């Protein structure tokens, strides 16, 4: 009997397999690399906007407190801002808190005293102190000793504020920058304050002290 030869056992040659495996590996590698890049890009963009929102928050906090301040001082390195703010709301322990703290939470009526240098509007005997400071990776706001973290990022958020006092007005100029995760090498190691990647993130605001108005 003549055996029938089974011609269906044909497979791929070693060469074909090598080519196919090679191409497949390249495709998988490309897909994998693309996926990683996409993830990193998404994370980078998400991180960028997240930090940008924190920039806005820092500026908004600062502007709000500067506007209602009696005075503002900034440190030489521009990283610490101290606002002196009227005590508008009566707090427990204040001299006018009343019996059983009956007046706590009420708005204080100011004492007005005309003087040779103009009327003095005084909301109570003391003032509140609000200090903004950079503390490692966080920006903190401390009001009368109570610390609140208002921004936190690993992107080296740096708020800088300068205070300008003139004859009848005073204002602060604030900038907040950060170093995005994806950045160029700029003019050095990519961490300098003048690095283009950092300066490109600058958010700027100018806030006038409403209690020191012109004219």
């Amino acid at each position, binding site marked *: 009997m003549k055996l029938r030869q089974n011609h269906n056992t044909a497979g791929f040659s070693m060469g074909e397999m090598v080519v196919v495996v090679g191409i497949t590996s390249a495709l998988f590698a490309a897909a994998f690399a693309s996926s990683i890049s*996409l993830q990193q890009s998404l994370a980078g963009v998400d991180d960028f906007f*997240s930090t940008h929102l924190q920039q806005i928050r820092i500026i908004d906090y600062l502007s709000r407190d500067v506007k209602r301040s009696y005075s503002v001082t900034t440190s030489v390195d521009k990283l610490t801002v101290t606002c002196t703010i009227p005590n508008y709301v009566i707090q427990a322990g204040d001299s006018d808190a009343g019996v059983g703290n009956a007046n706590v939470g*009420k708005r204080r009526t100011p004492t007005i005293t005309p003087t040779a240098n103009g009327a003095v509007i005084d909301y109570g005997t003391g003032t509140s102190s609000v200090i903004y400071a950079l503390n490692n990776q966080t920006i903190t706001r401390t009001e009368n000793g109570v610390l609140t973290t208002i921004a936190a990022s690993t992107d080296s958020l740096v708020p800088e504020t300068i205070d300008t006092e003139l004859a009848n007005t005073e204002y602060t100029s604030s900038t907040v920058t950060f170093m995005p995760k994806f950045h160029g090498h700029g003019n050095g190691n990519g961490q300098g304050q003048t690095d283009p990647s950092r300066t490109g993130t600058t958010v700027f605001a100018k806030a006038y002290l409403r209690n020191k108005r*012109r004219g």
Partner: protein
Amino acid sequence: MKINRHSETGSVILCAIAIIVIISLVAAGVLMNTTARYNATSKQVKAWKEALYAAEAGGDFGYVECRKASSAPGTQFTGGTWAVVSGAATPTWTLTTPATFGTNNSLSASVIVDQVFTDTNSNPFYRIRSVGNATVYGLKRVGMDDRMNATTRGDSLLRKIDFNYDHFIAAYGDGDGNNKQLLTVTTPKISRRIELIAAPVEPFEGFLKCLASFSGPGSAGVCDSYDSHNGAYYFCANNPADPHYLDSRNGSVSVNTPTFSQGGTIYGDVSTNGGNVTHSNSSITGTIDNNVSFTAPPVVQPVPPASNPYKPGSPATINPSSTATNSGTPDWYLYSVLDGVTINARTDASGNPIETYVTVVVTGNVGKITINKGVNARIYFAGSLSAKARDIVNNNVDGATGVKNADGTPSTNVSRAGHFQFMGITPTDGSTQVIDIAPPGNVWATFYAPSATFQLHGNPDIYGAITCNNFTGNGNTGFHFDKALRGTAGPPIDYRIASYVEDVR
């Protein structure tokens, strides 16, 4: 025959579905992130800022009415929906219908104004409380951007959004704990609350206010200040050890244009409106601001009250009536020209001068005039004033030594310059009023003439204060602002916002 069946089933469709699912998940994640970010940046931040704009706009609504206290007293709080709040301890007004504005009326402001203080000259101070509301658009379900870390709350500490209920009214009621209630909001909103104090602007708050230009003093001249509560003027502005040193450095000059020219030292602040004054190109001890504008209202010819008409005659000597010892009932005189006139004070039984109040209206020019000790003369003039400094005689003394009040008590009206007030009536025909003072001599007086060109020749010293249009006085003169004029030099000419607080609860 064997038929080979080639299976046509495969995994392509599964692969395609899997890829679509993966891409959809990625897209959904991106959308979730971007929506939250977009909501925060474009909607919530915007509304939070606009709520303050609305509150400050409401403050301006109130401020406009406060300013009418000096410019149009009878029309205060009468327009729009302003209404008097009945039963309040002090005069209080409110906008009964909150003002709406912004895109699609997304902003509104409600305002309440009360008279929080009245000074010794019966000038009211106003407190303006304004609440600004801004609609928060967008999807409220995405919430706020509070994802810094597990313990840090981010935006919600700063931007307090009322998604369903008004948190402020629920927690603080009207701000003082009254009428707390759970108030549903129809759309998400942000409210911000500010409180302003509007204080009167006095006619004289520094030595000089010029609406158009300033040139002076000469290279050897000075501009400084003193306080006549401490007695007569002496120069101490360069001596920090002097007890009155701090009172000597308020000889401020304000110009409402860029035109400012200076020779001698100004011991005080300087402001211009668009000028280029710096410490390096000037001799100014105080601060400099080149971005300050101001107004000085015109002077209209006054009319005496019907109960106190003009006294008759035009003598060379004025001897006021007994009622003139009350500042509320001064003697009124009407002249076409005032030149060579002496005004005497009332005296008590011992011959001591009594503070005596005289108002003179001059429809023409003013020349030589003498006021004796105790006289408070307010001279309104429509023409020009031209005289030598020695002929504008003010025989009062700083400190009011020897002068009594009508009730016999010693006078506390200490300012020598404050006893002699010149008011330049603003010409209605557009002509220029001129105040021209020549040497020799010195002048103790105040000049409020916002339409006048003030020319000071030579080296007379002026003690008091000046408001004018143009000022030229570049001789070696001394300009000495008497700080005691504050609060005594007449009714307010305007109002300013003197205090600003925000209720951040």
